[in-house]
C-alpha cells in the first residue's frame, strides 16, 4: 500500500513540489535499467511493481549497467564504453546527485559496483594510451574523489563483482583492445587473452587469474555473476569464425585450475549465435540464467554441476536479475518488454509496462 490517502495526494499535488510519480515508497520499486527511449535519446528508468515508469532520467549518452547502493537510495548508471560519465541518481527524489567524469586519458566500460559497506564506488576503466585495464576506486563520502587505481591484470576489463565477504574483487578481462579514436573497433582479435582475475580489494594485488585455454582465446569473458559460495557463472562472447560451434557458458570457483566450459544441447548452443549478454544467479544461488539476445533465448543452468536445465524464448532478451523468490528471474528485452520467469515451474508472466515501442532496455537490469 502506498500509505497515503486521496486527500493527502491532492494536497501534495497542489504543492507542485512533488511529482506524483515519486509518491511511491521505495519498497514499491521493482527495477532500474538503462534504456534507449528514442532514436537518439537515452535514459535511466526506474519501474515500480505496478509497472509504472517512476523515474526517467535523461542520460548524456547510452549507458550499460546500473549499480545500486547497498543501503542509501542511490543508483549509478555507467556510460557504455567508450563513454566517460556515470550519473548517480537519488531514486527517492529522482534527482541527479552527481555526474562523475572519468579521469583524463581514461574511459569507463559500462560497469561499476559499490563496496559492500557502501563507501566506495569501484569501476573498470581503460587507460587509453597503454590500452591496459584499470580498476578505479572512488570515495562516495567525499564527492566520488578517486582514492586509488590499480591494474585489472588484462585488456578490456568489463563486469566486476565482489565476493560475499567484500574483500576480493573478481574482474572479467574481456581481452579485446579498443581505442576511442577508432570507435568500438576491435584491434587485437588475433592475440586476445581473456581472463578472470581475482584481486585483493585492499592491496590491489592479484591473488588468482584464470585464462581461457589457448584454442579458445577468442572466447571473450565479459559478463558474469558470483553467488554467496563464490561460484562464478560466465556469459561468453565468441570472436572467431561464425561457423564455429564453441561453448558459451563457463563456471569457476576460486581454487579451480581451469574454467569449466559448458555447452547447451547442440541445437540450442547453435541457436545462441556465439553470443551471451548477461549472467545472473537466482536468489538462492543454485540456478544460473544466461541471456543470448542474438539467439532470442535465455538458458538456465545448475550452478553446482553446470548442467543445462531449460531454455526460454525471449526476443532480444538480455537484462537479467534475480527476484527474491528462488529460481525466479526478471528478464528485460531490447523490445522494451520485461518478463518474470521461474526456471523450475516454467511460469512466465509479462509485466504490464505500457512503454512506447521505441523503448529498448539495455543489457542489464538491477533489482531495487
Amino acid at each position, binding site marked *: 500500500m502506498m500509505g497515503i490517502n486521496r486527500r493527502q495526494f491532492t494536497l501534495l499535488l497542489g504543492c507542485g513540489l512533488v511529482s506524483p510519480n515519486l509518491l511511491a515508497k521505495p519498497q514499491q520499486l521493482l527495477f532500474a535499467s538503462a534504456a*534507449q527511449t528514442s*532514436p537518439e535519446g537515452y535514459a535511466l528508468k526506474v519501474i515500480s511493481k505496478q509497472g509504472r515508469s517512476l523515474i526517467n532520467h535523461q542520460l548524456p549518452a547510452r549507458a*550499460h549497467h546500473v549499480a545500486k547502493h547497498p543501503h542509501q537510495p542511490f543508483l549509478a548508471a555507467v556510460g*557504455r*564504453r567508450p563513454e566517460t560519465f556515470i550519473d548517480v541518481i537519488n531514486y527517492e527524489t529522482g534527482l541527479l546527485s552527481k555526474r562523475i567524469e572519468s579521469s583524463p586519458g581514461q574511459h569507463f566500460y*559500462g560497469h561499476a559496483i559499490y563496496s559492500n559497506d557502501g563507501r566506495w564506488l569501484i569501476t573498470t576503466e581503460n587507460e587509453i594510451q597503454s590500452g591496459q585495464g584499470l580498476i578505479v576506486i572512488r570515495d562516495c563520502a567525499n564527492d566520488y574523489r578517486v582514492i586509488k587505481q590499480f591494474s585489472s591484470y588484462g585488456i578490456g576489463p*568489463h563486469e566486476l563483482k565482489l565476493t560475499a565477504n567484500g574483500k576480493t574483487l573478481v574482474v572479467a578481462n574481456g581481452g579485446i583492445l579498443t581505442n576511442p579514436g577508432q570507435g568500438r573497433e576491435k584491434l587485437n582479435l588475433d592475440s586476445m587473452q581473456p581472463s578472470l582475475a581475482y584481486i585483493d580489494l585492499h592491496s590491489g594485488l592479484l591473488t588468482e587469474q584464470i585464462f581461457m585455454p589457448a584454442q579458445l582465446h577468442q572466447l571473450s569473458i*565479459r559478463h558474469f555473476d558470483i553467488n554467496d559460495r563464490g561460484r562464478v557463472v560466465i556469459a561468453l562472447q565468441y570472436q572467431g*569464425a*561464425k*561457423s564455429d*560451434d564453441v561453448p558459451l557458458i563457463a563456471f569457476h570457483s576460486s581454487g579451480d585450475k581451469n574454467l569449466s566450459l559448458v555447452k547447451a544441447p547442440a*541445437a540450442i548452443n*547453435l*541457436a545462441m549465435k556465439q*553470443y551471451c*549478454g548477461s549472467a545472473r544467479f537466482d536468489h538462492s544461488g543454485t540456478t544460473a540464467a544466461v541471456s543470448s*539476445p*542474438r539467439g*532470442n533465448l535465455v538458458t538456465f543452468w545448475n550452478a553446482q554441476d553446470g548442467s543445462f536445465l531449460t531454455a526460454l*524464448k525471449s*526476443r*532480444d*532478451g*538480455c*537484462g537479467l536479475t534475480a527476484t527474491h523468490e528462488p529460481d525466479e528471474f526478471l528478464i528485460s*528485452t*531490447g*523490445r*522494451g518488454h520485461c518478463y518474470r520467469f521461474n526456471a523450475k515451474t516454467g511460469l512466465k508472466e509479462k509485466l504490464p509496462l505500457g512503454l*512506447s*515501442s*521505441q523503448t*529498448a*532496455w*539495455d*543489457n542489464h537490469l538491477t533489482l531495487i
Partner: protein
Amino acid sequence: MSLRISTSSKYAIFISLALAAVNVKAEISQTQWMKLNQASINEHILPGYQKLASTSEALEQATADLCQNLTDTHLKQTQSRFNDMLNAWQGIQHVQFGPIELLMRSYTIQFWPDKKNLTSKQLNTVLNNAEPATLTPDYFQTASIAVKGLPAMERILFAEQPLQALKQQTFRCDFLHAISSHLEMQTQNTLNEWKLYKKEFEYTSSEEGAYESAQEATIDLMKAQVEPLEVIRDLKLLRPLGKTDKAKPRRLENWRSRNSLLNIQTNIKSLHHQFSGAKDYSLFALLSDHGAIDLAEGIEQQFVALEALLAQVPAPLSQHINEPNVREQLLLITQGISLLHKSLDKSMSTLELQLGFNSRDGD
C-alpha cells in the same frame, strides 16, 4: 533511368533521396503487419525456397548424369545447373531466420568467406583418402560444413582441368554427387518446413507461438530486408577491394565460377523485390499508406539506381577489379549501398520498428 548519367549526378541522386522528409500518419495495426508478413512470405520467401529446392534437384540430376558420362557436354551442363542453384541461393540468402537456421543449413549451403581456406584443405583430405564411408548420408550429417556445400562443389566443377581430374578419380565425381544429394535434401527440407513455419505468421497475437505479435514477426522479415546490405558491401565488395589500391580478386565470392558480380546483382534485385515486388502488400505499400510516400519512392529509386550501376560493371569481376575505373565504380556502389541502408533504417524508425538493440550492438 539512363545508364549514361555522370558519376557525380548519380551520387547526388543517392544523397537527396536519403534525406526525404517523413511524416507518419497513423499507428499501424497488427492486422496490417500480418498482411505485410503474409505477402512477403507467399510472394517472396516461399518462391525463393521453391527455386532453391528445384535448382538443387536439377543440379543433383546433372551431377548423377555427369558421373555416368564424363564428357565435356555433361560437365558444361552440370556447371550451368551449379550456376542456377548458386543464383537461387543468392536470391534467398538474406533470409536468415526460420528453418534455414536449423542444423547450420545456411553455412552448410555456403561456407563463405573462408578466410583460412578450410574448404580446399578439408576437401583435399577427403578426396585423397577416398573413403567409401564419406559418400554416405551419415557422414554428411556430421561432416565439416567446409566440405558439404556449394564452395566445395565449385572447387571440383571449376578446377583448372575439371574433366581430366574427374576422369582420373571416379571417387571425385562420386563425392561431388554426394554433396549435391545432401544439398538437395537440405533445401527440400527447408522448403517443407517453411510451409509449416508459415503458420506462425497467420495470427495477430499469440502467447505460445513463435512470435508474440504480428509486428514482432515483421521484425524478422525486416532484418532480412535491411541487414544483408552491410554484408554485401563489406564482405562482397570492400574486402576484395582492399584498403590500398591493390585489389584481391580471390577474396571475391565465387570467383572460380565467375559469379561474383552476378551474385551481388541478384542480392540487390532480391532485396528490391522484397521491398516492393509483392503484389498483395509490401514495405513500399505500407510506407506509402502511412504518409511516408517520399521515403518509399526514394528507396525504390535507390534500388533502381543501384541496379543500373551494377549493370555497368564488367564481368567477370575477378579480371576487372584491378582496373582503376572499375574500382571507382565499385566504390560508388558501396556508397550507394550505404545510403540505401540509411534510408531503410530511416523507414524502420519511421514505422517504429526496432530491429534489435542488445542483439545488434550489445557489449
